[in-house]
């Protein structure tokens, strides 16, 4: 009570009620939307990596099927093919596979046979491509033809088109959802700030009538609401990062992580969230306060 009040130790109280800064409604709404936005951002990054991973796995290698021709043994043909392919620029390594490995692949077609030598089993050459400038299928075919080897090149291009399309779909959907949620979060910050400020109309009025400069009043609200938004943005971002970390830990090798591979570094993507939220809130508060003051004059 007032008995405890001592003017000597008095310090000016903030002009805006301190409890407003802990306004649970505003904090919670902004935090939830920032959480969702950050989570979507993490999801998009992870999905992008996953898609990129599939594609690069496929683009990183090609398989060449070599058929023996003109008396050459299949092994010799494969060796020659590997040699020819190794010389192509964009190929890191070309390795002829064992006969058994090739047989495994065509066994369903020919049934169990004990005498492999009797069969015209083709040989496989596994080609590892340079990740940055991979050799194209026509280049490989060209080299093989030049070396006079009867072979077909499978650079997974059919698969890659599908994978690319799926990856693009994931990327674009993710980006769309992210934009939607981030836009919603921003709009919520704007509207929540306006609502909170309208409730403090009397503070604006009293300060205005007491001769406070418009900028001074606007700044009060600006800092206050920027602070609230930053705090709730940080809470939401931290929540999303924590969930990301849990997913990362849970799905070490399998589980969710292979499908959505989250890297520790990805978690840093939530960092701009509190700053953005604060900036949006600051601008919203400033313009709203200015509007209220104009209406009062």
């Amino acid at each position: 009570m007032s008995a405890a009040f001592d003017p000597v130790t008095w310090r000016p109280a903030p002009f805006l009620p301190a409890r407003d800064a802990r306004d649970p409604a505003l904090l919670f709404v902004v935090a939830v939307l920032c959480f969702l936005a950050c989570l979507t951002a993490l999801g998009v990054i992870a999905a992008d990596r996953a898609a990129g991973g599939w594609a690069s796995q496929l683009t990183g290698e090609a398989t060449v099927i070599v058929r023996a021709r003109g008396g050459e043994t299949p092994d010799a043909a494969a060796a020659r093919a590997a040699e020819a392919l190794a010389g192509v620029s964009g190929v890191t390594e070309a390795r002829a596979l064992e006969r058994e490995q090739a047989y495994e692949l065509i066994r369903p077609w020919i049934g169990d046979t004990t005498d492999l030598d009797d069969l015209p089993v083709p040989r496989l050459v596994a080609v590892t491509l340079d990740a940055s400038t991979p050799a194209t299928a026509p280049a490989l075919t060209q080299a093989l033809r030049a070396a006079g080897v009867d072979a077909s090149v499978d650079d997974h291009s059919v698969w890659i088109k599908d994978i690319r399309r799926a990856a693009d779909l994931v990327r674009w959907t993710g980006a769309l959802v992210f934009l939607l949620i981030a836009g919603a979060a921003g709009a919520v910050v704007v509207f929540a700030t306006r609502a909170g400020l309208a409730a403090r109309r009397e503070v604006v009025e009293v300060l205005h009538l007491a001769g406070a400069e418009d900028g001074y009043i606007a700044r009060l609200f600006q800092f206050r609401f920027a602070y609230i938004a930053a705090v709730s943005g940080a809470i939401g971002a931290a929540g999303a990062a924590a969930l990301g970390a849990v997913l990362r830990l849970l799905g070490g090798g399998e589980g969710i992580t292979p499908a959505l591979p989250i890297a520790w570094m990805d978690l840093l993507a939530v960092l701009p969230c509190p700053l953005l939220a604060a900036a949006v809130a600051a601008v919203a508060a400033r313009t709203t306060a200015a509007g209220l003051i104009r209406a009062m004059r």
Partner: protein
Amino acid sequence: MSAEGDIVRFEDVSMRYGRGPDVLRDLSFALPKGSFHFITGPSGAGKSSLLKLIYLAASASRGRVEVFGQDARQVRTKDIPAVRRRIGVVFQDLLLLDHLSAFDNAALPLRIAGFKAADYRADVAELLSWVGLGDRMGAMPPTLAGGEKQRLAIARAVVARPEILLADEPSGNVDYDMALRIFRLFVELNRLGTTVIIATHDQDLVARSGRPVLHLEHGRLTHLPPPPGEGP
């Protein structure tokens, strides 16, 4: 033209709210610097509206209002705060901030004027004691009695020693002894140079004070103040 030394001047001023009827009509008067006037009149006569014109919270629909020698209409929006800081107002509905302590409410004009807490702490405490709030300085307005709120509003209006003090019904909720005490505070302030204008129904106080009266009826001035130009 404004006579030297007139701090407030009305010339044929009319005023209305929005598209409503005129609540003030053809007011002309001048208040010399350092003068002390009462404004009386029945409820709804336009006393509060007249004060609003002086502290620039409303503008005349016709005529010319001069404050501190400047035409109110010519004051640029960005210069209004500076003018307001030279005027202390006891609003009829008090306009205290419920979330600030009595002390913070009273200190508000000093903070806005940019003074340091250390420089005014003692003054604010002394003023609050003077108006009888010495033991309620830490209380929030909603926990104050009606008369205590009114005295707090008065303390806030005078704390920065304004050049003009406008008090709108400052003693409606206090007893006669307290009303006299408040009147003495205003007189003291006036002696230090503040021009004082009090809107009130308290006929007793007006009569005993012997100060000049502007009497309004239906927005018209019926008693004229003494001729301008006799300021300090």
